[in-house]
């Protein structure tokens, strides 16, 4: 199937991909695209409704909401992609180790995964944020740890099924080292399902980041993030609803785009997932 055919057969996925590219461009060029400085306050301009001058209106401090939402794209996309990526790498390592070597290693890894899996991601995120305090890398750690068991479980399951293949035994019997077998044979088989869940988990990571920022555990004021714009907006409900509405639409569109894109990737790679 040529690239064009793929695109035409999946209009929804293609549209989602276009939206994602646009979002990445917005994140990169946010400073140039923002009509105002996202941090500059102006008491005279507080709580304005959307207008030609301020597309999304202004907040209680007179800051331009459009510029703040644009800038918020950066932390959302950055955190939303880095954290699951780190979780995927660490989770793969753990899951492959457990699934490949079996025995005590696997029992320890399996038990740890089961234990972490019974916690909802948000609760794990809150737990880690509470211990580490706020900050960018602290948030990456919190989200990463929240997703790690989910990747580890998938990596372990895929490794277990590959482990029984005759070619693994063949490689080992001709004297290949375990490291080489894992690199050559196990990793390529694990990477497919991991890639699929990765795109789907990015959507969840962005939603989680917004939630943690909303709870005051993520990006700290005055730096804007979609979550803390909504937090600020709630303290100013009687002033203007526009910051909440705009930031919420930004979150929803981004999460939707990643979800639809993830679905398209899954269909394309034809990976079976037992979610």
């Amino acid at each position, binding site marked *: 199937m040529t690239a064009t055919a793929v695109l035409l057969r999946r209009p929804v996925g293609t549209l989602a991909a276009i939206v994602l590219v646009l979002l990445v461009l917005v994140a990169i060029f946010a400073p140039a695209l923002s009509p105002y400085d996202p941090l500059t306050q102006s008491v005279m301009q507080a709580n304005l409704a959307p207008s030609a001058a301020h597309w999304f209106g202004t907040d209680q401090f007179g800051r331009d909401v459009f510029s703040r939402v644009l800038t918020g794209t950066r932390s959302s996309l950055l955190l939303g992609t880095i954290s699951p990526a780190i979780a995927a790498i660490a989770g793969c390592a753990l899951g492959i180790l457990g699934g490949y070597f079996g025995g005590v290693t696997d029992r320890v890894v399996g038990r740890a995964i089961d234990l972490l899996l019974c916690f*909802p991601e948000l609760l794990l995120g809150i737990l880690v944020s509470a*211990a580490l305090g706020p900050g960018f890398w602290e948030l990456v750690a919190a989200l990463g740890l929240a997703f790690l068991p989910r990747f580890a479980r998938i990596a372990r399951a895929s490794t277990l099924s590959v482990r029984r293949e005759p070619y693994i035994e063949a490689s080992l019997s001709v004297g290949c080292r375990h490291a080489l077998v894992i690199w050559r044979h196990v990793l390529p088989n694990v990477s497919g399902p991991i890639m699929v869940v990765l795109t789907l988990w990015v959507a969840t990571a962005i*939603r989680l980041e917004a*939630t943690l920022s909303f709870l005051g555990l993520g990006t700290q004021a005055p730096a804007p993030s979609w979550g803390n714009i*909504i937090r600020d907006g709630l303290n100013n409900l009687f002033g203007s609803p526009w910051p909440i509405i705009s*930031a919420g639409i930004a979150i929803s569109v981004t*999460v939707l785009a990643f*979800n639809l894109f993830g679905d398209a990737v899954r269909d394309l790679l034809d990976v079976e997932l037992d979610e």
Partner: protein
Amino acid sequence: MLRTIGQRLADSVPTLLLVVTLVFLALRLLPGDPALVALGENATPDQLDLFRHRMGLDIPLWRQYLVFLKDLATLNFGTSFMNQIPILDLLAASLPYTLALTAAATAVGVALGVPLGVLAATRRGRTADTVARLLALLGFTVPDFYLAALLLIWLALGWGWFPINGLGESLPDQLYHLVLPAVTLGVVKAAFISRLTRSALLDVLGRDYVRTAWAKGAQAGRVIYRHALRNALLPVATGLSVSILSTLSGSVAIELIFGRPGLGSLLIGAIETRDYPVIQADLVVFAVLVVAVNLAMDLLAVAIDPRLRT
């Protein structure tokens, strides 16, 4: 049946120990220094030492752990840094509201999600299925705290149908205050439950005994509800525990938005005021609730499916 219950209860004891240990270790082994996180960057070394001493953080880890377990077993959580109130009292005052919200949201989620899933499965590929799919997609996409804020702006602030925040005085008033928070969490939950019900039911509808029921000339309602849905409920019940747990954690944000007391607002307030002993105790209660929900759903599965009994 009693034996199974006893066995599941016994099984959950080590899990319980592991999850509270997880909270203990997370607050101590992660690179963040609790004293520094609690007191801030400007604290003097003396203040930091005093804090560590008061929290028992200056003794070896294994002794801290023993003290932690002993305090837990005797329900001795200490007092809050902020107002010197016994933490047990704070928890006891918050827990019922969080449980009520989670229960109400679960009821809304099941009441909306199961019929929606049945509708989608029985009218597969038709308009109802598409509508149900779009609703579910919306539920997966819109974060619950944003939905809560929107409902607050429109239904409470704009149209004045519901109170903006607080708890309410009398029982009917309290229930009235519970509506918006429960509906917010319930709608998000219904998205998940409807997908789960749909796929479980579709799976069952293809089975032989369902075809037999149709062949006997049974009415559609009887086939779907008596024969198919009862068997489809098992995966739904398993999925329900995941869903209840995500509602439990989602309640943190919802309590904050609607200004409701509860474990979530207690936790966030404690994190903001760096009330370390309250943070630890609150997280322990959350961890215990996680195990309790898993256990309860396990038992529900046993009740639904006699094959799981030993």
